[in-house]
């Protein structure tokens, strides 16, 4: 992660907010000075070694640092882990997601782990057992979560929840090496593999070496997942995601009972990468909901949930390259159908159109490879609508599994103006399935290419090209912020530049249907904001303005980096404003924190103060809510 000034500021502020000033000061020093030893830190921060050790202790406990002790010199260096620091802001989101996807007990455990940073399983067991001594008797060994609270109440229950989360990769094991900077490890492996003993000739080929480096690095990266694999061997394939509050969850947990007890000395922590995958699915689903409607969004969410069970990270590791996600998971329509929430009314959300106005051939088109950049051009090789019947019979001939699907299609094509049979069987599963397929097709047809229809088995196979969809989402976010800062015309101009590349200044007004002077003013404003830039190409060596061509261009990467930094800054400002507000209301707040006041604020406080207190809480909600929304954007640009 590239750390800008504002990102560092934000991380220090978050740490300050949660863990106090001391760790925050050390962290800020680490951000500005880079990797340091304790003595160096003492110089930078003007703190004594004792304090520094205390501060570092807190930071390490919260996984906010990388540290490494050199084997030869025995010197330990510390380095800030900006990604982990930033993740602090997401704690709430992660908990909310865990609660809705996995259940209350899981949420409780993750919350504890987030609070502790990392913990030994034995410690966790101790904490949970001692926390709920009263319910120990009845829930022990039962495993079924009978209490109303849904919280963990016994050791075996804890272990079940824990192993479930480990197998879902939400929780990973911590080893000493987990605290090393991955790029360090990579370079170390690289040096190790490529180094040759004196006098020895470099015999291995480059490719061979590269493969070896990859293997070793992958081994390092997959270390935290060792326990998951171990558990998987015992428990068969990963159980499907459980839903809150229905019976499925208990079955799962009962099945987990056969697990061997977890080694109490294993240290675990929350795996943010996997959490981000889940959050990304959430974001994409709401994106789909925003573009196509609520029901379609729900179908998409289900599809994403199924697709991402085995996806452990949003983006391929830069060191491992693209190969990590080369084999793409697909799901079938039937799978999605089985996991779709019963409450989702798939019949709504799509308009009706007369059958003769629907081209099933293009709607059902199967794309085996990710589409290129331009949808329209990409499709142009296809011949325009041929007779449907012959096409369907072709399909049936080539693929046995296909026949069922094509039959239903040809029935729809059969020239019946209204499908009477369909309506009568409104409750039948087949109908619901077809309706749901319509949503999937709609998703596939969208210009954002939410899903790709990649096969015909199981009534259609679907996959998601995350890179492309995320690029579209980023584009949408970028467009929105341009639109709101520079108006429709600004957006129009940048989109023209994005589509056509570098463009002569003279071409812009006619393409955008705008006045020349307006275009110039808009472009200038956007140049000031760093969104667009101009390249001057002199026609001859006199370099006078009227003998020079001016080419405008839009630098996507730079704009995204710029907007990301603006986001950090906006987050910092929102948090700082909250601090200012807290300082302003410090009298009331310190009063509220008193033990005898907590819980009965309304009775104890005067009306005036109570109103002030409430207003402050509202402001706090507003500010923190805003920070969360900004974080959503940051994740979109940076992680997803």
């Amino acid at each position: 992660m590239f750390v800008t000034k504002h990102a560092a500021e934000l991380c220090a502020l978050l740490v300050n907010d949660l863990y106090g000033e001391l760790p925050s000061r050390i962290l800020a020093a680490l951000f500005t000075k880079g990797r340091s030893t304790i003595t160096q830190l003492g110089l930078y921060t003007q703190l004594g070694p004792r304090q520094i050790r205390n501060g570092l202790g807190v930071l390490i406990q919260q996984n906010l640092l990388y540290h490494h002790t050199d084997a030869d010199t025995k010197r330990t260096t510390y380095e800030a882990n900006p990604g982990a620091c930033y993740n602090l802001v997401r704690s709430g989101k992660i908990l909310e997601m865990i609660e809705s996807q996995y259940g209350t007990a899981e949420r409780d455990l993750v919350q504890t782990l987030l609070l502790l940073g990392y913990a030994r399983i034995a410690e966790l067991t101790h904490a949970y057992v001692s926390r709920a001594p009263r319910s120990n008797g009845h829930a022990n060994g039962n495993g079924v979560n009978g209490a109303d609270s849904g919280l963990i109440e016994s050791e075996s229950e804890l272990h079940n929840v824990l192993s479930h989360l480990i197998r879902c990769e939400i929780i990973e094991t911590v080893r000493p090496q987990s605290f090393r900077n991955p790029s360090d490890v990579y370079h170390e492996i690289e040096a190790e593999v490529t180094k040759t003993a004196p006098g020895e000739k470099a015999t291995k080929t480059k490719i061979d070496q590269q493969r070896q480096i990859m293997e070793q690095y992958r081994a390092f990266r997959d270390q935290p997942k060792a326990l998951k694999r171990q558990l998987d061997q015992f428990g068969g394939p990963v159980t499907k995601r459980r839903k809150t509050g229905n019976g499925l969850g208990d079955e799962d947990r009962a099945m987990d009972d056969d697990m061997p007890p977890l080694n109490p000395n294993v240290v675990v922590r929350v795996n943010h990468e996997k959490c981000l995958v889940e959050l990304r699915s959430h974001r994409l689903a709401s994106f789909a909901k925003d573009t196509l409607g609520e029901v379609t969004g729900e179908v998409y969410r289900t599809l994403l949930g199924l697709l991402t069970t085995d996806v452990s990270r949003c983006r391929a590791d830069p060191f491992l390259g693209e190969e990590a996600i080369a084999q793409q998971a697909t799901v079938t329509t039937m799978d999605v159908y089985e996991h779709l929430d019963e409450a989702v009314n798939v019949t709504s959300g799509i308009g009706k159109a007369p059958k003769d106005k629907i081209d099933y051939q293009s709607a059902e088109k199967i794309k085996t490879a990710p589409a290129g950049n331009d949808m329209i051009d990409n499709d142009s090789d296809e011949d325009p609508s041929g007779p449907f019947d012959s096409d369907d019979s072709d399909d049936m001939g080539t693929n046995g599994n296909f026949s069922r699907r094509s039959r239903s299609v040809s029935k729809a094509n059969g020239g019946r103006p209204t499908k009477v049979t369909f309506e009568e069987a409104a409750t039948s599963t087949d109908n619901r399935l077809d309706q749901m397929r319509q949503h999937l097709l709609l998703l596939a047809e969208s210009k954002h290419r939410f899903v790709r229809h990649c096969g015909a088995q199981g009534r259609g196979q679907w996959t998601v090209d995350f890179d492309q969809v995320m690029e579209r989402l980023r584009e949408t976010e970028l467009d929105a912020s341009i639109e709101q800062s520079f108006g429709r015309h600004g957006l129009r101009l940048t989109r023209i530049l994005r589509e056509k590349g570098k463009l002569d200044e003279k071409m812009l007004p006619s393409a955008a249907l705008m006045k020349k002077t307006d275009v110039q003013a808009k472009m200038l404003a956007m140049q000031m904001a760093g969104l667009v830039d101009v390249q001057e190409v002199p026609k001859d060596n006199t370099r006078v303005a009227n003998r020079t061509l001016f080419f405008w261009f839009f630098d996507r990467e730079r704009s995204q980096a710029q907007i990301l930094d603006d986001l950090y800054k906006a987050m910092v400002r929102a948090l700082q404003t909250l601090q200012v507000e807290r300082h302003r209301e410090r009298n009331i707040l310190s009063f509220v924190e008193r033990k005898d006041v907590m819980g009965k604020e309304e009775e104890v406080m005067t009306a005036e103060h109570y109103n002030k207190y409430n207003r402050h809480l509202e402001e706090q909600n507003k500010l923190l809510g805003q920070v969360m929304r900004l974080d959503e954007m940051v994740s979109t640009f940076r992680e997803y």
Partner: protein
Amino acid sequence: MSASAASAGPSRANGSDADSAKLAVLKELLYDRCREEGDMFSQDDLLRMEVIPNRDLLLLARVVQSLSDDKLFITMREASGQVLWKWRDKQEAHKYKQCTTDEQVMVYSLIDDSGGDGIWTQTLQKRLNMHDSVLKNAIKQLQAKGLIAPFKNVEHPNKKMYIKASIRPSDRATGGPWYTDQDLDEAFIEDLQRVVFDFIKRQSSYHSTHAGAAKAAAQVPKKGIIKGGLGDAAKGKKRDAAEMEAKPVAPSAKIPPVSVSASSRREPALLPLPAGYMAYPTVRDIARLLSSSGITNNTILSEGDVKKLVDVLVWDNLVEPIKVAGKVGYRVSRVAKQSVESWAGREDPSGRSGGPELYVSPLTEAPCGRCPVFDLCEEGGPVGPSNCEYFKKWLGKEIF
């Protein structure tokens, strides 16, 4: 031309009456053949027409020279140096006869050559190397005779330009239909965009009065909407929302009561059409709507012009192209969030109500995203979080 004139001159002077009569016949013949045959001719082409007996080059030179003198032939030179001739309409040629002085002829021929794009007075002067007053005089006289007319070119609004009075300025010079009196007619474009947007929105979405409507049989609401759309547009740009809504409601009344009662909680909303829908409006459909509705008054919009208009809407993120069954149609973006009201014909100054609903970025919703002094903002600086006016306003604390 000048070289041939020099050689042809004496021969014509010595020619007898019979000779000149023969010449006139040959001229007529050659001219007519040229008009039949095509556009441009080289010397060989002219010889091949077999108008000139014995392929007499000297005779051909005389004939061509004579035609050139009568302005019936235009002499041109290719880049390779080859000389070509083009014929000119007799009526046009006659106009040259109206030019009384050589200066007028020279000026007129330049203006004639420039065609629909017109020519700048400065260019005239540079080419002709005339004295300013002579040129002005010639122009004035030509103008008085109704041969040339002054006009303004949108690409160079400050230049004084002239064009032949008999032809219309080219699209490049007038800027096409988007210009009125050499100014980009932004209000016209904006209103047209709204009409087009409304049209695309109506044609590319399903108007559902409630969620239950989707359960209804495959109705044919499209036809009704198309008719309604055209009818509305024909009345002018002002269409009120009630009228709009009335149309789609009619077919949904046929819904069986069972499905209505199932879930009739939702507000009227737009729904996406099923995948593979083929009747998304194309540029041609939109062009047809615009021409049949008559909202463009006396301006004629070609399909290319409409395409430009739609392209702009695409760039504005308001509509998106979609290719189904080999043809490109357009549909509205973010269909689920668009309002059912129409955008066109609204008078409110913000121009937003009923307009397209765009995705709002969280960044620009908070004070920082819109802050004019965002770059200066720093704790301890002249502007900072501790004294931020915008945050105060945003938090609703203007009292402080």
